[in-house]
């Protein structure tokens, strides 16, 4: 009678536990604040620099002198402290951690809310604030409340142009923006087993959008094969009669492409409902959908054609970019008229490049469509890379199934 969270954290749901963490990471945004707190705590060198990473992804490359100065300071600290440092261009923290750093069964904390992405490996991965991160640098550990768990039971296989992102928008619609507050999600069933690692990363990534602390898959054959490609041997996990607080079922077979409409993430509807909505920008990227497979699906639709609206594509990491170059899909994307950004978060957080203007309407593969987030006075819809591609070609919202 143990959920995966209970097993990894080593405590019953509802209890508080102090635990050493296996991986801790922050990015250029939260890392600056964590360093500030670390110094105020009297910290000099982190307890265990080998387990700590700083990954520059939020404003890369720096957009002005203030940002550059802050990044300069944190870069110097990282190098002096012997922390694993990933500079501008390496990619988004969650993606970098998924490329051979994080392993099943680990306790992972990141100073970013989408740290739950790494639950795709069967790790307990959760976001914390910057001062929490500073204390973790100082002591190597932190406290957790062991969460209750909601089972998200996936049946069947995705078909046609429907993707893991559509299933993600569906479970968030079903749970609501706070439907899983303080809780963990476990993605189970034959549908979960059928998902490739990339789809699992997308589904775990958005657990936070239902308020969840973590979103976990059991590590299995798919996980082992993915990690084996990165030279890592991994253990498989099996469910141990877990006791769930709640269960929801999603039939992947009968899902259609989905949108989340402004300004909430739990507003999932079939794409057709908003078909024909004129767009000013399409954005493909982020820790939700900036992986190679996402870019490939996008490229397969736009190849040989021209987008009708400005379209920004940002690979999630350097290795994604490298693969997109070597397989030629990046050329397809560029020749279709898209603009390419440095691997990183891109316009998702509304801090630089690709921000929308007042009154503009955007379509994005990101995880949040909060009011004013990606541009003051703009509206944006969330969707999958295939929907983004069909819509970019049409200049308006369009289902990939009608393409």
């Amino acid at each position, binding site marked *: 009678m143990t959920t995966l969270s209970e097993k990894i954290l080593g405590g019953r749901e509802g209890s508080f536990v102090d635990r050493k963490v296996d991986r801790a990471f922050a990015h250029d945004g939260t890392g600056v604040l964590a360093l500030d707190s670390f110094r105020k*705590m009297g910290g000099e060198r982190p307890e265990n620099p080998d387990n700590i990473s700083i990954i520059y992804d939020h404003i890369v490359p720096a957009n002005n002198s203030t940002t550059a100065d802050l990044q300069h300071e944190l870069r110097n600290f990282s190098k002096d402290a012997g922390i694993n440092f990933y500079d501008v261009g390496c990619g988004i923290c969650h993606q970098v951690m998924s490329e051979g750093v994080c392993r099943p069964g680990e306790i992972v904390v990141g100073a970013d*809310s989408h740290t739950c992405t790494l639950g795709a490996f069967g790790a307990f991965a959760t976001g914390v604030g910057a001062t929490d991160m500073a*204390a973790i640098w100082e002591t190597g550990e932190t406290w957790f409340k062991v969460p209750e768990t909601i089972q998200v039971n996936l049946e069947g296989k995705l078909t046609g142009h429907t993707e893991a992102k559509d299933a993600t928008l569906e479970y968030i619609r079903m749970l609501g923006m706070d439907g899983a507050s303080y809780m963990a999600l476990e993605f189970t069933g034959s549908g979960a087993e059928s998902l490739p690692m990339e789809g699992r990363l997308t589904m775990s990534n958005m657990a936070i959008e239902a308020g969840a602390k973590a979103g976990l898959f059991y590590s299995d054959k798919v996980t082992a094969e993915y990690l084996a490609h990165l030279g890592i041997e991994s253990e498989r996990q099996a469910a141990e009669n877990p006791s769930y607080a709640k269960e929801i079922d999603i039939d992947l077979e009968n899902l259609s492409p989905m949108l989340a409409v402004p300004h909430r993430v739990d507003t999932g509807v079939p794409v057709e409902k908003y078909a024909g909505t004129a767009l000013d920008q399409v954005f493909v990227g982020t820790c939700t959908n900036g992986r190679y497979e996402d870019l490939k699906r996008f490229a397969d639709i736009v190849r040989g054609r021209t987008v009708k609206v400005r379209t920004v594509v940002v690979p999630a990491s350097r290795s994604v970019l490298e693969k997109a170059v070597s397989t030629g899909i990046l050329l397809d994307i560029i020749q279709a008229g898209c603009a390419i950004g440095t691997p990183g978060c891109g316009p998702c*957080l509304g801090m630089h490049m690709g921000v929308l203007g007042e009154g503009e309407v955007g379509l994005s593969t990101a995880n949040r469509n*909060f*009011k004013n987030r990606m541009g003051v006075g703009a509206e944006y819809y969330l969707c999958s890379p295939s929907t983004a591609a069909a819509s970019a070609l049409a200049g308006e919202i369009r289902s990939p199934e009608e393409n």
Partner: protein
Amino acid sequence: MEERGKAVCIGEDVDTDMIIAGRYLRTKDRKVWADHAFEDYDPEIAGRLKGSVIIAGKNVGCGSSREQAAIALKEAGVLAVVSPSFARIFFRNLVNTGILVFETDEIKCTDGDEVIFSADEDRVEVGGVRYDAKPISESMKEIIRAGGLIEYMRKRR
């Protein structure tokens, strides 16, 4: 020891982008965050935060983990945040910033209502009505009493 503050009432699902917009994060100047707190939600709120208690609808602080949201409130002089439910990272950040948190039933409130509360008790009085709050752990109370996680860690050294 009892403290008193004036209620500032906000709605449900107010996310951390609403509390401090991303465009103000490119700095370490805490005053900037305090000055622009809630700007995209209601620009009138920032001027009323000194000595206030935020009475929020459910799921306050959802979204981004940005600690600047909690720091902005602290810097602006917010004494406590009361809500039927907190997004968990924001909850942790409030505690770590040294701001009192009270998780209660939904509260009907009007801006300016007197709020009476105590760091030692798990209840809060808003406009003359008492509400029981979910108890928080002793270690969270210790962090709040110390004035935040930074001060708590300094004491532990």
